[in-house]
């Protein structure tokens, strides 16, 4: 928490700004977008480096394979479109993993939180898809600063990276000095609540982090400490941080703006089972109904991944 808390900016805006910064530092960075660059903010890069920006038009499969070609000629390709539409290029991404590739994929407009555009535009399977690539790294940042840092990390490290971006503006809760890394996370814990006997752990990422932080405050009155983990690196999960917390707290909620399958909830469950950690309570709040158009806050409430449902769920543990 810092002084910037009152400021808002979307993670997709951060993506566009970060592209320009890495583009200045590294002339091997090229950017591809499937005719959505005004939504993904890849257009920021296009304005500064028109020669290194390639409009791919609405042809996602071709875009992924073209990016692979750029990679093999020594470039660092970043490609972007809506996360929903990346799913049609799964075969191309799957094949790219057999070419020791260096692909940086950004999927914007994830989740039901995009709101009025409706289900056809919502990326709700993208975490599952990208986690299933054997050696992929999957990022799902919640704020401006973490996104910018993660884009830098993507540029510096080789491999298939996925960056899940949110349409809505979100609070800028970190700052330029905050540390983010592959396999990292940030623990949000209120000092004065540590003395509370009732404790619950909440693992989340992206837009639902802010719902969780609101619930954290709501639960203070009930003398329940809610420890919130911003698991901005969905793959690999931050085992070192998460495991001791789960062992200590044993009441776990995972919240994500994604379908139940293959996302953060399953990643966390897998980790817990693998390490044979006994839990007292477990709840996975996610998108478990077919969505529809509406205001983002209405949809988060309808899916039960908002502040209210988180608070209710945690209270039910005690």
């Amino acid at each position, binding site marked *: 928490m810092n002084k910037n808390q009152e400021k808002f900016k979307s993670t997709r805006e951060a993506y566009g700004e970060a592209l320009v910064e890495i583009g200045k530092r590294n002339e091997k960075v*090229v950017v591809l977008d499937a005719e959505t660059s005004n939504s993904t903010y890849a257009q920021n890069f296009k304005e500064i480096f028109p*020669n*290194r920006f*390639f409009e*791919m*038009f609405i*042809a996602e*499969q*071709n875009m*992924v*394979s*073209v*990016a*692979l*070609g*750029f*990679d*093999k*000629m*020594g*470039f660092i*390709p970043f490609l972007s479109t809506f996360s929903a539409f990346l799913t049609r290029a799964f*075969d*191309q991404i*799957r*094949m790219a993993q*057999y*070419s*020791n590739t260096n692909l940086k994929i950004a999927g914007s407009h994830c989740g039901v939180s995009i709101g009025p555009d409706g289900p056809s535009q919502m990326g709700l399977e993208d975490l599952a898809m990208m986690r299933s690539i054997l050696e992929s790294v999957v990022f799902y940042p919640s704020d401006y600063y973490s996104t910018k840092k993660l884009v830098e990390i993507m540029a510096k490290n080789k491999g298939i990276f996925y960056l899940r971006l949110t349409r809505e503006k979100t609070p800028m809760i970190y700052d330029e000095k905050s540390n983010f890394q592959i396999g990292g996370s940030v623990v949000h814990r209120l000092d004065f609540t540590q003395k509370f006997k009732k404790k619950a752990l909440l693992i989340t990422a992206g837009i639902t982090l802010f719902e969780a932080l609101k619930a954290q405050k709501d639960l203070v009155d009930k003398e329940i400490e809610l420890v919130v983990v911003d698991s901005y690196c969905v793959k690999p999960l931050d085992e070192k941080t998460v495991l001791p917390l789960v062992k200590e707290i044993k009441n776990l909620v995972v919240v994500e703006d994604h379908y139940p399958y293959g996302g953060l909830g399953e990643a966390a469950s897998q980790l817990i089972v693998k390490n044979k950690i006994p839990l007292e309570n477990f709840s996975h709040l996610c998108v478990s109904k077919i969505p529809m158009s509406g205001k983002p806050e209405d949809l988060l409430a309808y899916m039960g991944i908002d502040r209210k449902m988180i608070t209710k769920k945690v209270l039910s543990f005690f």
Partner: protein
Amino acid sequence: MTYDLSKKAKKIRELILKMTTVASSGHPTSSLSAVELMTNLFFAGFFNEKNDEIIFSKGHSAPLLYALYAVLGKIDEKKLETLRQFGSVLEGHPTPRFPYVKVATGSLGQGLSIGLGMALAKRLLNSKGKVFVLLGDSEISEGQVWEAVQLASYYKTDNLIAIVDINRLGQRGQTMLGWDVLSYQKRFESFSWQTFLVDGHNLEEIDKTYREVLLSIEKKPKVILAKTIKGKGVSFLEDKDGWHGKALSKDELEKALEELEQNQGEKIFEKDSVEKKLFPDQSQKSEEIKNLLRKLNHYF
């Protein structure tokens, strides 16, 4: 220096048939149809290994790819016997575990897009290199191929050269267009590609076509539409249904090798650098080259 291309083609056919029989699996017939197209590209001086790229989008013709590198002397002929075996870099479909391949192929319809990425990258690097992509006719049905075709013409990637091995047969029978090469031509031309039609087993014609392709200064991507015969060179495989992805038995292999021996022709070519090949000595200018230059004249 002269060389006999048909001898090389015959050798490559032998290797394809032998290695797939040893492996008891693989795609010999899909490899045989593109032998002349690739033999000429690799051995007549058109392909510059330092600057150029070649992608086998039809990854199932991996035996042809491996045979080419064996005849080039890059890999030991003996190694071909490890095709498709556990631990061998000669996988069923090419992957970069084979050191002369940059991208894995085998999921059809992706090679042209990868080639387009390479072609755009080469342009950005101010490299003169070209990107050749060998495609099968069956994989043209993939929508992604046409995504690449239209984008290549938008970016006018004149350094991208597609070679379509139109052998008529897919996995279970005839393709949508069969040998209707004129329909393929119309489709590519409607996307503003420069097209070249060729008999994919006639070494002289192929030679002439590559020369035309490389001499063209049209700011367009190029496609060579080659009419070929699946299983070419072995009578009981040629244009036959039911031979896709099937290796010959030992007896069948013996018969096939005998046939190859009997039908051996001779095609003597001059081996030159690409430049010399494209711009031969003016004093020796043949009628054919004069015609070619006349044809190309309006581009200059």
